[in-house]
């Protein structure tokens, strides 16, 4: 018999429950990705999830730990999220590389669930972006945009996934296109105004909202993501602090600068809907392990992510700033936890001074 302290009741929440809720919340987005990229999306999703689980299993075996945590859902979730933030164009070996990197370096070498300082999926994506910039900055044309592109059937997709564009008699340039954010960045560099560039791109806010623009697998549909995200908030799996402060900060900054110079700074709606902001804000920045744990810390984290996202998108080399912003803020998480604490009952805000 061991010493057992109160409480002797438990609310019933568990890691597994949490993880599987998030997976369920991501299903709409995954379905939209299949709608946009057909079998290609299916291959990518299965590869990432499968390899993640396998890597988790092997790492646990190698370290001589029990292998039960493979089924707690966190590795599967990492794989799923990883697939959702990759462009549909990545070949099989890159997907495997990313999944192995995410689970091995991103998670298990740090001691497994709960100890990784960086978001594993995002870390893997950043590595891919740095290592293979070509594949990671060009996006496959979604199914509905170009009916002439025969890319999404089972066989062609399989060939493309394993053998590359030559195998399906396509050139890279013909099947890929720029994402709205990338396009806007290029055009702004050419001296084109924001509104003109958006017209040239044929950008539509509605399409971005329901998910018909090119981009990473899962970031297409704001609608699907919001559905999942709001459900998670309602279930209390994630709290509102990070998503709201993150998206809010980006929107406010964008609105402010758009007001000052509408030709050079994109409007807030564009910033929010185009690209992976919503995915990042609801599902990646909220990764409990790599974000601060107090509510107020979460707000600081969200605001930091927002500012960095906007700055990198606007001034930096990477039109997809949200991802870097989250990884950068991951670094600051321990410090936020240390310096930004909730006010303790009976104390004045700030330090240990009594009320």
């Amino acid at each position, binding site marked *: 018999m061991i010493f057992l302290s109160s409480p002797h009741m438990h609310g019933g929440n568990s890691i597994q429950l949490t993880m599987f809720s998030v997976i369920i919340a991501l299903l709409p987005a995954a379905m939209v990705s299949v709608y946009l990229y057909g079998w290609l999306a299916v291959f990518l999703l299965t590869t990432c999830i499968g390899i993640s689980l396998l890597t988790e299993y092997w790492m646990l075996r190698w370290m001589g730990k029990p292998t039960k945590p493979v089924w707690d859902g966190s590795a599967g979730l990492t794989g799923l999220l990883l697939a959702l933030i990759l462009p549909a164009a990545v070949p099989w070996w890159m997907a495997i590389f990313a999944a192995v990197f995410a689970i091995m*370096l991103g998670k298990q070498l*740090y*001691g497994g669930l709960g100890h990784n300082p*960086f978001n594993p999926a995002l*870390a893997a994506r*950043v590595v891919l972006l740095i290592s293979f910039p070509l594949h990671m900055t060009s996006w496959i044309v979604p199914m509905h945009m170009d009916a002439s592109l025969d890319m999404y059937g089972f066989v062609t997709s399989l060939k493309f996934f394993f053998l590359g564009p030559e195998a399906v008699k396509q050139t890279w340039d013909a099947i890929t296109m720029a994402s709205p954010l990338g396009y806007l960045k290029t055009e702004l560099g050419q001296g084109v105004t924001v509104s003109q560039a958006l017209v040239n791109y044929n950008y539509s806010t509605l399409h971005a909202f329901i998910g018909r623009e090119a981009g990473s697998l899962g970031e297409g549909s704001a609608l699907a993501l919001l559905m999942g995200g709001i459900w998670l908030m309602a279930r209390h799996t994630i709290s509102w602090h990070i998503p709201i402060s993150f998206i809010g900060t980006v929107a406010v900054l964008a609105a402010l600068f758009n007001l000052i110079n509408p030709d050079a700074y994109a409007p807030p709606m564009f910033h929010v809907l185009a690209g992976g902001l919503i995915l990042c804000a609801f599902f990646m920045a909220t990764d409990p392990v790599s974000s601060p744990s107090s509510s107020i810390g979460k707000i600081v984290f969200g605001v930091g992510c927002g500012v960095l996202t906007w700055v990198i998108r606007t001034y930096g080399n990477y039109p997809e700033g949200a991802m870097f912003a989250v990884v950068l803020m991951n*670094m600051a998480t321990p410090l936020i936890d240390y310096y930004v604490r909730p006010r303790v009952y009976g104390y004045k805000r700030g330090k240990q001074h009594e009320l």
Partner: protein
Amino acid sequence: MTEFGIILLSAVLVNNYVLTKFLGICPFLGVSTKLETAIGMSFAVMFVMTLASTASWIIQQLILIPFDILYLQTVFFILIIAALVQFVELVMHKTSPVLYQGLGIFLPLITTNCAVLGVAILNVQQDYSFFASVLYGFGAALGFGLVLVLFSGLRERLEAAPIPEVFKGSPIALITAGMMALAFMGFAGLVKV
């Protein structure tokens, strides 16, 4: 004014000494196991690096160039830095024990720190004005301090993690530093040169 802003931004984030220029890695790895020490070290480095870039500018402009003895650059700089550090340490020890407690113990470490000599050499290579070079030294040190403090926060967290035996200690610290460098690549392009 924007010029100075750009110098600072570039030195702190975009061309961070530790993560992109590989300078000052030894103290970065050595003094980052505890947050408090890291903060102390950061301040000490800030102090010395600003001093070093100031001194190197003066020597370069007043001695090395007029006498055309650029081949003595390294010896000149390092001697001045070593002497300055030691002098500061002595004075601090005597006059302000509190400050010495905080910063003094790091000072000898700093003499043999690439970042300090690096800032002196890179600084004069860039042909900055006096004020800009002081700012550059300060910015580089600020960048060093920033990543050092962030890194120590992360390492404190790693302390408690069940990391596999062979990766415990420096291997995982280096991998973490690699991840930080990855993240810092996100700042690329903020300052166009």
